[in-house]
């Protein structure tokens, strides 16, 4: 779009991101436009999936919500409070109710610590101890994520498989009882059979703890499985945001259609991918004017170069940022 626009927002959202912009200065003249005006929200107890190709800004959105990157502009509201305006102390408190799980499960655990300490640490950084929590909280959590048994807590991460490390990370993220969980490719580094375990586990935990989730992945089949709504990003912009089934059954943005058509062995009713997309992704340092997808879009016209499309509702709850959406 791809585009900007607030049409897709809800009143009862737990997390609301408005006009988020993240730019990384490269040198005196150039900046990387990693995220350029992204707006979306997530309703309580639901999962929003973000898909897009490498470098489209998915991870940056997650990190900016956590304030691991300070956004260049825009706001991130958690339960109505803007975390971008918070002082360090307020932010520390806010982070308790937002947790992020990173892509690589093994390297995101400190290899020299015991598992139980790693989970407990989720509390300690808040100046809390096990005593502040309901008795057995940590053991219960370890059991919830499938790491029950007394001996497990004594071991160190390198003794665990990738799937088990991811369970540890999840337990640690949940120890402060967060409201929002951001997951960046939580299962991509895992084997398929283990990936299935983690995806099932996340669904169970979402029920058990009433979590609101932001699920970032490049794998469309995985996003299809876990999400309630799906947002497609391209080069730092939102292309399309829609309920899960609606997005996969009636994709309207040309980029979404190309992305879906590229899934190997898919059974969707789409022309071959080669007819829907051409060329290479442009540099985020100097993105195209107007619609950022126009250099690769088979339907692009002069209007697409001149005017940036905004998100428009094409069917109930289904928003697309394209001048000529597919019907």
């Amino acid at each position, binding site marked *: 779009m791809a585009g900007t626009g607030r049409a897709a927002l809800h009143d009862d959202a737990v997390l609301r991101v408005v006009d988020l912009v993240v730019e990384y200065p490269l040198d005196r003249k150039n900046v990387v436009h990693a995220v350029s005006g992204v707006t979306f929200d997530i309703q309580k107890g639901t999962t929003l999936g973000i898909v897009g190709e490498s470098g489209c800004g998915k991870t940056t959105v997650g990190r900016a919500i956590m304030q691991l990157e300070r956004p260049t502009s825009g706001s991130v509201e958690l339960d109505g409070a803007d975390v971008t305006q918070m002082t360090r102390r307020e932010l520390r408190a806010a982070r308790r109710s937002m947790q992020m799980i*990173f892509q690589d499960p093994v390297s995101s655990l400190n290899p*020299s610590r015991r598992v139980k300490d790693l989970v407990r640490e989720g509390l300690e950084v808040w100046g809390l101890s096990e005593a502040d929590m309901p008795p057995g909280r940590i053991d219960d959590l370890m059991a919830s994520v499938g790491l029950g048994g007394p001996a497990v807590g004594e071991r160190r991460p*390198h003794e665990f498989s990738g799937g088990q490390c991811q369970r540890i990370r999840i337990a640690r993220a949940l120890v402060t009882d967060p409201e929002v969980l951001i997951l960046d490719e939580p299962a991509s580094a895992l084997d*398929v059979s283990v*990936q*299935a375990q983690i995806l099932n586990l996340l669904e169970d935990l979402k029920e058990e703890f009433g979590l609101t989730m932001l699920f970032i992945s490049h794998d*469309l089949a995985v996003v299809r499985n876990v999400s309630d709504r799906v947002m497609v990003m391209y080069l730092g912009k939102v292309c399309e945001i829609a309920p899960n089934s609606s997005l996969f059954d009636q994709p309207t943005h040309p980029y979404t259609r*190309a992305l879906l058509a590229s899934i190997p062995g*898919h059974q969707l009713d789409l022309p071959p991918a080669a007819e829907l997309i051409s060329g290479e992704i442009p540099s985020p340092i100097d993105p195209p004017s107007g619609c950022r997808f126009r250099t690769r879009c088979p339907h692009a016209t002069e209007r697409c170069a001149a005017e940036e499309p905004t998100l428009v509702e094409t069917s109930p709850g289904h928003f697309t940022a394209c001048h000529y959406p597919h019907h």
Partner: protein
Amino acid sequence: MAPVDATAVLNDVGERAAVSPSADIASTGASQSTPPPRALGVTFWLAAGWIAVLLFVAVFADLLPVRDPDALGIRTREVEKFERPGWNAPFGGDGVGHDQFARVIAGTRPALIIGISVTLIGGLIGMAVGLASGYLRGKLDAVSALLIDMALAFPGLVLVIAVRAAFGNSIYVFVALFSVASVPAYARIVRGATLSLSERAFVDVAQAMGASKLRILWRELAPNIAVPALAFAFIGFALVIVAEGGLAFVGLSLDQITWGQLIADGTGEINEHPHVSLIPATVMFLTILSFNLVGDGIRSHFAPREVATRRRFRTEGPPSPSSGGSTLRVDQLRTTLHTQSGDVRVVDDVSFELDAGDCLAIVGESGSGKTMMLRSIVGAFALADVTRSGTVEVEGTDMLRIAPDELRSVLGSHIGMVPQNPLTALNPVRRIETQIIEPMRAHRSISKSQARAEALELMQHVGIPDPERRLRDYPHQLSGGMRQRITIAIALANQPKLLLADEPTTALDVTVQDQILRLLLGLQRDLEMAMILVTHDLAVVRGFADRVAIAYGGQLVESGTIERIFNDPKHRYTAALLSSVPDLELEPHSRLVTIEGQPPPLIDPSPGCRFAPRCPAATDLCHTTEPERTDDEDRWFRCHFPVTGDAEIETAGSRSTRPADAIRAETQGVN
């Protein structure tokens, strides 16, 4: 590609693959499967023993029943001038009849005091500087990095000599001097380790959890730096002792007896009475050696190398009789890696054939041995001690038993390889043109201009726009997709009969993956090549290959046409694997079928079926007897109790019509 490049390509897939058999064992979770840290070995313990003896001597020097080191033999008559080593004086006497044994013992304490204090003071300051500058970065880092570099470039010994001359010869001066001089080296090594550690995600995670910088430094980074720093400290210790010896030699030693002094004192008489110098020199040498050995031992103990440290390839047993005809014939291929933790059976009784124009996908989870199957065909292993048996024939040539130079020419002319990561597979400092032309000229006698013309044609073939200009580019000037097109062009440079592609699109985006796979499969069909496509992605297999083989625990458990396998899997593992993958046709929030338990160990695998510990249908027979190969229409499988296709178990094709929980209950069972 040229033979050299062929190995390089595989090494790229490689570092991971070479280590993966045991690394995967390491990751299988159960306590028994954690590899034991590398054994420390006799030399380490001898060295540690020597250090222990030195420590004992240093502490109890005054209580030991030896002579006064300063007693003059010429006066006491107890030790002769230049007495030879013997019962009376084990290390002999020096020019004034000092008992050398007593003097060497007296020198132990200063040596250790200097070594330990310098290492502690210099090491701790260096570690603090290195940690802070590596983690906090910014201006602090810029300044300290500059200071470190300047300090390391400065001729430290000159400074030490000058200051030592000015401030006298007390041990404190010495310690202070050497501590200061050793800070930069420690700081540098710790800074490097910190920089790379703080790239790791757990630092981000700690920050995301709200941990303070100090806490991250202390709790997250410092413990991980401790081991490399400790290893370096032992080596640093040895350096301090060497330095003291050096200073003694130029007459700038301490006001106490030191080994360096003893050596220096004896050098005047080195021709007539060599023992006076040589014995303390030997003690010093053994000490330095011991500290180095212990330092190295610590380092390698905590960073175990899974693969053998030597390279040795062997072939066992006779080949099976050749049937001729097929492009690639693999028969009862077995590959064993001999490692520190044991023999890893990475490929175990694998057989298949490929004709011209065939494309076989080998699919499996990590550690199932799929990459090793490819490497076993071409005999490219990183650093390893490998035994292969069975048969691999490429165009009728026995790949396991031919001479190395012949192997190189077969590799270069009959086999093309497409690597996983195009970025690391291409040489960053050489032009695309050179990298395509080189393999051509290595295996065919063609002129440079002819090779260039062919390269141009290849570039067009693999869909590179403006090939003239691109030939002169360097790899970094191209996008990931373009680079992968180049590696395909290189693989095709000598019109190979067999194309081996290991995860060729795993590093690429889905829209690019689609383009590259279409290109690769199109070329394979047009040029009638046989091709193996190794991947973990079932969707890719389903969308692109003709035939598939499923790898599990170093074996192939089932193989057949895509149709047959995807619609009607027979082996229990195949069936479970197919239904564990999320699929677009599945309703959102469907429960996925999982396979409980862990992949099997490749060291001492259990007898019987490798899948038995995780298989819900396993019986005693499965645990004791390896299933034979059963041939079925368009496929074969190895399972005692294959899926029958009735209501008993679901298959991938029809599962979306059934509640996933029911499937799950059926497929889990045992664990």
